[in-house]
């Protein structure tokens, strides 16, 4: 199709680069520099979408970020993306675009039936119905859900990647229009580190949409080019185009998103698609411009009804006529500029309908001089045309009643350009907690005092004349640099000069006078995307939803993907008028990030897939991998869970590992256990305070088990601590708690007991730790540590000694978490793999068997040893665990006081016991709940739960540990475990120590 609405010359497009694209299955052409919206308009396409609720036909309203209507589904499959604004999609060759929220097609949409029903579907109708019969709601909901939503989610894993970065600067300038450019120049010349962020593909802002503007005597385009060049030459200045500052957070922290490759036809693989900038700015200059407002009148939503300034931008920037015959409808002087530029581009401007009884202002005068047909004191009271506006009806406004009188004229047209005034884009300012104030003359909210280091300049600050914008931008840039600590430069002294034209005078009417009573005739839309009409707002007020926040939520005004950029102020105005209040009394709804929607992917950045979260590996990890270990996640660590041999099930592997450790020799990588080096003369006393038991008498070379509580008396960690020297200890913690325990020790030392001479240092990663367990542990060690005296006299149970194992400097501790004779060998981490190899080689004769965490769990459960986090859950005291023996009565320790609170002494607290199921083959599920009696139906009072449960190959039956109310008094009794599958397991309460209660296996 030809670009029949493309002007033969002009615009900022690159006519040498023709680009083909497809919309709803049809092929079109455009130029580089076009947005999709511009290219569609160039091809005469106005109907591009359907509204959210009534599925009304919708066209292109704006030329920028504020677009509520022209929402497009871009791309296919996994790269498909819904709800993109056609006004911001940069055209690339081969672009695939679809309209959305219609079925089967855009021009014939079944959903449009809603429009016929719209009388019974006012705001909030769903709160009032679908309640009968009660059981039908889920069916109604199904229909509602499928009617709602706009575009479609992409299908499949996103093939693109994203990036993020921190950044710092002295001055961030948001917006690359005249105000922002002037600010960046001034700040840059003052020597500040400047970042200029502009969401558009190019600098210039609204200047790009003008014609004949001059700055400092040069055409605007030249001035922009010079500014761009000067900024590029300053190495302290970074200009980021295609970069949206989307959120302004605390302490001048600004989040921005840069579109790196979206606009490229070929996407280089090494570049991310988009990048999140997490920027800390000392000062921020907001130069974000302003957004034109539509006018609210009957049937103001048809394709072809556009913002006046957008029509102007399409002409000047994209060399596109939006139509052939235009009517302009305005309430301010600014609307005439659009009329003039359109006329100059060959559009037949049928009339300028002006709400003002006495149109005046410089642009108005020029239009008069040009002989445009002006209809003062008039209003558009209705339109017609299904897929494109065809006619507008104009009525005269009766100054007395404020009502429009009967239609005075009906005008044919294919474009209705409207201007209802301007709203400064103060979204970021408000996000920064700055208060906004209402400016009566401008009929708009403007920034009040900033709450952070922010300066507003230009149109977003209520300055609409170009000279004012430049002056404010210049001053803001200079002041921001100064506030950021930079010395003012000499050559930055002067602001660029230009002429000043605003859009005033204007006459505010939040809803255009109509010739019909409210609610009759066509729908007067306020929020185009969500189909909210002026009448919906009145309905909400009538029903008692008086707060503007209630109005918003009841009608959904401003809640669409555009967040009400074009509609919010009109809505507030209508609410104020209806309630007879002043606009400031009504107030604004809260501005929230993002300014325009931002991709989820940027928040993940490159922290996806393998880089999602660190995978911590021990120095022996590669061996485990080669051995085919199955791994278990413990915190960020990967720990071998079990080592299946070919063809083995998990159950078989674990049984084999468990048996090996009891019968001959098992070997385990225990490197992940937390290790804390503690030095200083007060260490023993310190341990007294952090552990429940006493530490003063521990001899050098000996180890002791300890329990740690929180101040609520609950068990939080356990482990063995060794005394290495007079004032030197090595504490071990559970794998998961290594970091929190270290942090807590450090906290107590710094804040509670600063006078203690104790130093704690993490050495978890300094050592590789290998445990060998079983009757052949000692023979193996004897072989590899010939110099070491392993006799029980020299190295008894719970002792530690330095030595060399396989030629490696080591610390050898004889401690046991399995109940077997076992040694924990600590060597420098870099030697861990070598040690492992040496042990495996020398241990072959004992059929040395690597075992994983699962076998370790079985081994310790056979002995009734607890695992913190499995038997405990933050509500368990040492007494509950039957570990009174480790709780000192004499000294104070963290958590001690809590143990004497009334509820800690109750006999029905849950206590640790062993459980044997009646059927020895039956392994209770972990997490099974226990009852005394099974009732026919719930609720059934529960007395506890199974915390650990395994098949014990050594006992040849199942065993379990459980926490049961008053458990210690229930020894020998029967309890029942009703399972989810309806069966019940009968079990006997027994001691939690199933194997070798005397501990003879620990001895030679």
């Amino acid at each position: 199709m030809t670009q029949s609405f493309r002007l033969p010359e002009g615009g900022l497009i690159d006519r040498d680069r023709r680009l083909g694209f497809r919309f709803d299955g049809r092929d079109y052409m455009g130029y580089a520099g076009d947005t999709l919206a511009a290219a569609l308009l160039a091809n005469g396409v106005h109907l591009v979408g359907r509204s959210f609720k009534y599925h009304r036909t919708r066209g292109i309203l704006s030329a920028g970020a504020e677009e509520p209507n022209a929402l497009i589904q871009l791309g296919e499959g996994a790269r498909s993306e819904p709800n993109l604004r056609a006004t911001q999609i940069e055209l690339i060759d081969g672009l695939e675009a679809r309209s959305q929220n219609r079925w089967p097609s855009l021009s014939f949409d079944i959903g449009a039936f809603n429009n016929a029903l719209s009388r019974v579907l006012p705001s909030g109708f769903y709160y009032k119905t679908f309640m009968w019969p009660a059981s039908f709601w889920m069916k109604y909901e199904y229909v509602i859900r499928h009617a709602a939503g706009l575009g479609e989610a992409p299908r499949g894993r996103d093939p693109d990647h994203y990036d993020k970065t921190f950044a710092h600067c002295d001055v961030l300038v948001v917006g690359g229009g005249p105000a922002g450019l002037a600010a960046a120049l001034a700040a840059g010349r003052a020597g500040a580190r400047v970042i200029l962020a502009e969401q558009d593909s190019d600098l210039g802002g609204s200047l790009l949409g003008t014609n004949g503007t001059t700055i400092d005597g040069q055409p605007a385009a030249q001035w922009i080019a010079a500014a761009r060049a000067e900024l590029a030459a300053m190495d302290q200045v970074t200009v980021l185009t295609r970069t949206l500052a989307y959120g302004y957070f605390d302490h001048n922290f600004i989040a921005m998103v840069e579109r790196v490759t979206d606009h490229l036809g070929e996407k280089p693989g090494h570049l991310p698609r988009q990048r999140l900038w997490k920027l800390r700015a000392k000062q921020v200059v907001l130069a974000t411009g302003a957004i034109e407002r539509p006018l609210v009148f009957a049937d103001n939503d048809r394709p072809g009804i556009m913002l006046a300034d957008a029509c102007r931008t399409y002409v000047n920037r994209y060399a596109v006529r939006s139509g052939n015959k235009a009517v302009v409808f305005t309430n301010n002087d600014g609307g005439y500029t659009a009329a003039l530029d359109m006329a100059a581009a060959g559009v037949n401007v049928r009339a300028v309908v002006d709400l003002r009884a006495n149109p005046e202002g410089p642009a108005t005068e020029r239009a008069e001089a040009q002989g445009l047909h002006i209809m003062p004191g008039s209003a558009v009271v209705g339109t017609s045309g299904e897929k494109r506006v065809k006619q507008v009806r104009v009525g005269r406004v009766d100054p007395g009643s404020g009502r429009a009188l009967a239609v005075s004229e009906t005008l044919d047209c294919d474009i209705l350009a409207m201007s209802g005034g301007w709203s400064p884009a103060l979204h970021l300012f408000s996000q920064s907690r700055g208060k906004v104030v209402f400016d009566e003359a401008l009929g708009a909210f403007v920034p009040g005092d900033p709450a952070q280091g922010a300066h507003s300049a230009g149109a977003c600050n209520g300055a609409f004349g170009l000279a004012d914008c430049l002056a404010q931008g210049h001053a803001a840039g200079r002041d921001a640099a100064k506030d950021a600590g930079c010395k003012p430069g000499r050559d930055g002294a002067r602001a660029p000069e230009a002429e000043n034209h605003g859009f005033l005078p204007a006459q505010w009417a939040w809803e255009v006078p109509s010739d019909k009573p409210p609610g009759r005739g066509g729908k007067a839309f306020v929020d185009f995307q969500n189909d909210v009409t002026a009448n919906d707002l009145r309905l909400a007020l009538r029903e008692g939803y008086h707060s503007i926040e209630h109005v918003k939520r009841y009608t959904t005004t401003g809640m669409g993907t555009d967040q009400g950029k074009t509609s919010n102020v009109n809505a507030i105005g209508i609410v104020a008028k209806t309630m007879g209040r002043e606009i400031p009394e009504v107030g604004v709804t809260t501005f929230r990030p993002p300014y325009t929607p931002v991709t989820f992917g940027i928040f993940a950045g490159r922290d996806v897939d393998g880089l999602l979260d660190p995978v911590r590996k021990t120095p022996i990890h590669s061996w485990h991998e080669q051995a085919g270990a199955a791994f278990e996640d413990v915190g960020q660590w990967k720990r071998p869970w079990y080592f299946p041999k070919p063809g083995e099930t998990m159950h078989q592997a674990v049984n084999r590992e468990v048996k090996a450790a009891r019968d001959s020799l098992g070997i385990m990588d225990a490197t992940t256990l937390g290790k804390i080096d503690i030095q200083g003369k007060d260490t023993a006393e310190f341990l007294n305070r952090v552990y429940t038991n006493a530490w003063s008498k521990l001899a050098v070379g000996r180890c002791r088990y300890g329990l740690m509580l929180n101040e609520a008396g609950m068990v939080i960690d356990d482990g063995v601590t060794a005394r290495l020297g007079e004032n030197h200890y090595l504490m071990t913690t559970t794998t998961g708690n290594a970091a929190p325990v270290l942090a807590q020790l450090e906290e107590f030392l710094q804040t509670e007991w600063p006078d203690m001479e104790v130093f704690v240092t993490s050495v978890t990663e300094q050592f590789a730790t290998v445990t060998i367990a079983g009757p052949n542990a000692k023979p193996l060690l004897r072989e590899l540590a010939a110099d070491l005296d392993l006799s029980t006299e020299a190295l008894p149970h719970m002792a530690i000694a330095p030595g060399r194992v396989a030629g490696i400097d080591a610390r050898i501790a004889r401690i046991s978490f399995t109940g077997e004779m076992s040694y924990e060998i600590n060597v420098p981490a870099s030697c861990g793999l070598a040690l492992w190899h040496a042990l495996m080689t020398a241990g072959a004769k004992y059929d040395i068997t690597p075992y994983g965490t699962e076998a370790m769990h079985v081994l310790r459960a056979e002995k009734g040893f607890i695992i913190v986090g499995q038997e405990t859950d933050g509500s368990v005291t040492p007494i509950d665990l039957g570990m009174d023996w480790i709780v000192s009565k004499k000294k104070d320790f963290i958590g001690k006081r809590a143990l004497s609170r009334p509820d800690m002494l109750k006999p029905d607290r849950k206590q640790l016991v062993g459980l044997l199921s009646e059927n020895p083959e039956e392994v209770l599920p972990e997490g099974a709940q226990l009852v005394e009696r099974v009732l026919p139906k719930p609720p059934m009072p529960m007395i506890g739960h199974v915390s650990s449960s395994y098949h014990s190959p050594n006992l040849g039956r199942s065993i379990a540990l459980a926490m049961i109310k008053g458990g210690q008094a229930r020894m020998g009794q029967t309890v029942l475990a009703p399972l989810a599958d309806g069966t019940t397991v009968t079990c006997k309460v027994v001691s939690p120590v199933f194997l070798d209660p005397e501990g003879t296996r620990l001895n030679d």
Partner: protein
Amino acid sequence: MIESYLRQSPLAHLALAAHGPGSGKPAGVHMAERPFPGLVNLRGPGDNANFHGAFKAAAGYDLPVEAGATAGSANTTALWLGPGEWLILDARGGPKSGPRIAESLRAALAGISAAVTDISESRACIRISGAKARAVLQKGCPLDFHPRHFAQGQCAQSVLARAAILLHMTPDETAADGPAFDVYVARSFAEYTWRWLEDAAREFGVARGER
């Protein structure tokens, strides 16, 4: 018995052979593991002259006391980690260097309430250098790497993506084609950190091996 070739540096298993950035263009970033540095954690009374005196007597230089400052001799460098905490670093390292430094410091500080802990084995050291080194670190680390804020010889502890790091901008390398940073990270995070940095550097072109 244990031969030093059996020692595994934290990144040894990745078999990081030197290679260029590919596609013929110059690498924006160079990355290399620096294996076996000697690292000793020193804690002591930062406000005690005896302590400082004893250190100086042993090391031949004063402990730095400003945030992020470093000081050193030909043999070792002291990095300020916090009030009363330093890292004594022998970048050339070697398997015994950590224990050796620790031993001599312990001897020198006998009788002073201080703690000396060899942590050489517990950290990996990744050197990242080149014109884009700053940009790569900036992706994951909230510090400001502008030369005005992070100068040669300076050190800082911070985070890089989801790992805790100690950064040292090495003073010895001349910034012919960009600055050089040593990134110290817990051994078990080494592979993650390496892969993360390599991925971050991809858009600039990465060469493995030092310049």
